[in-house]
């Protein structure tokens, strides 16, 4: 067994790779033959197995002294097992890609209304993905230059500008919708205004005349802003995080043991 799971080289390596792939396909074929009555049990079993390693590593007692202090025999395997889940997760990218390409590909093929935009989208995927991957293998300056135009001239500014226009929308929405009708709304507005004023130089100038020493410094807007962030916002967010943590733990336990209900778990297979 030890000789089997050792790195191979040359033609032997490719034989093993192809063999492993074929064996994997064989396992998929065998799984496809699972009777309907056993499918749910099989899915529940694999869900349980998927979480078993991390759960065991969490619950297993740790060494209290020595080089393995605070760890158990499973701790060393966290990185490789996480790597497996990351790799498998990366394979799922194709699902979203297929969906996007099929919708816009059909729009182009059938010359639907605004099909030109769909063609731009498909072209942009290729124009970014190909040079970005190509430059990993070909260090020519032309590829690097083209990638830089795509990244620094397209993706990067578009990304920053898209997110920056949200500033206009937030302010516009707040102006239209926000009315101080309750104490809570007043507190929220006051807190937001102090935080915003406290972060800009012009706002800080408003209270710059107050000496920045002793008791009076507490009334400078930048110190008030900092106080709200660290002494009021932090504990409130900490309490929210603790609540989220407990809720997530309960949900995780339900998912792991397949006790959760909903379409994924209840639908007939």
């Amino acid at each position, binding site marked *: 067994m030890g000789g089997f799971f050792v790195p191979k080289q040359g033609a032997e390596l490719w034989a093993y790779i192809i063999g492993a792939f074929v064996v994997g396909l064989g396992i998929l074929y065998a799984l496809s033959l699972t009777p309907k009555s056993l499918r749910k049990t099989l899915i529940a079993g694999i869900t349980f197995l998927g979480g078993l390693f991390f759960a065991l590593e969490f619950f297993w007692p740790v060494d209290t002294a020595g080089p393995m202090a605070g760890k158990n025999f499973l701790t060393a395997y966290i990185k490789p097992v996480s790597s497996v889940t990351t790799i498998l997760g990366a394979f799922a990218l194709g699902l979203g*890609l297929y969906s996007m390409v099929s919708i816009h590909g059909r729009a182009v093929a059938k010359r639907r209304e605004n099909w030109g935009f769909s063609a731009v989208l498909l072209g942009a995927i290729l124009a970014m993905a190909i040079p970005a991957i190509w430059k990993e293998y070909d260090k020519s300056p032309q590829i690097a230059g083209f990638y830089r135009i795509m990244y620094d001239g397209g993706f990067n500014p*578009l990304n920053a*500008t898209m997110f920056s226009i949200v500033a206009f929308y937030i302010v516009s929405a707040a102006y239209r919708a926000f009315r101080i009708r309750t104490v809570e709304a007043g507190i929220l507005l006051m807190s937001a205004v102090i935080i915003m004023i406290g972060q800009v130089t012009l706002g800080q100038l408003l209270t710059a005349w107050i000496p920045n020493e002793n008791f009076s410094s507490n009334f400078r807007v930048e110190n008030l802003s900092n106080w709200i962030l660290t002494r009021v916002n932090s504990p409130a967010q900490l309490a929210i995080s603790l609540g989220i943590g407990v809720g997530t733990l309960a949900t995780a336990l339900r998912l792991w043991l397949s006790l959760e209900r909903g379409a994924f778990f209840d639908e007939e297979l």
Partner: protein
Amino acid sequence: MFDFLSNDATVRVIYIWCAALCTLGIYSILYKENKVYRFLEHLFLGLATGYTISQTWTTILKPQWWEPMTNDGQWWWALALPAGLLFYMVFFPRHAWMSRLIFGFFFGAAAGRTFQAFAATYFPLVKSAVNIPLMNPPEASMPGAYWLTGTSAILNNLLFLAIVISVMVYFFFSFEQRHPAIRMTSRFGRYTLMFAFGAIFGSTIMARMSLLIGRMFFLIHDWFQVTVLGMKG
């Protein structure tokens, strides 16, 4: 034909002009919906998808899967491909149920990782909430401290603890909050939550504003002054 792409100065001029046109085109939506914005919106979506594909290959699949398998001889990674193919069973109605095997595996793994995260993230959070000095705070002996520093540090720490408890009480829905003490604590929690939401709202606006300032600086300095007018940067 594409030799100009190897000239750094030329590439810089091209990408600055592209970036300026993209920036102005996106801001055109602030006036009204138009074709230039729609074009750039689709361009952005396409570039972002292309970038995600490239990052998935260059930062995950190539270094963690392909290279260990083909360069280091770890052939067993080939088994990951059929496992990954399970995702695509969703496109075959007869075998669509098989995609649930891999999704189930991920549900399980995510649940298992939550146990780890609980230990790594939430235990230290609880510790940080209760591990604050209510007597002899270190702030009192720091440089610049004055007669009120120690008292205010203790009051701030008490307030910190009170806010953590009151917000948790506010979110405690297991029984009806009838008792006046619980109702008052819960109300205090609600008020402090409003402070926190205001702080989040203000910080979000300021973060977007800094992006906006960044784009304005780019347009005025990098593009107009340096590239268009030829002024020194």
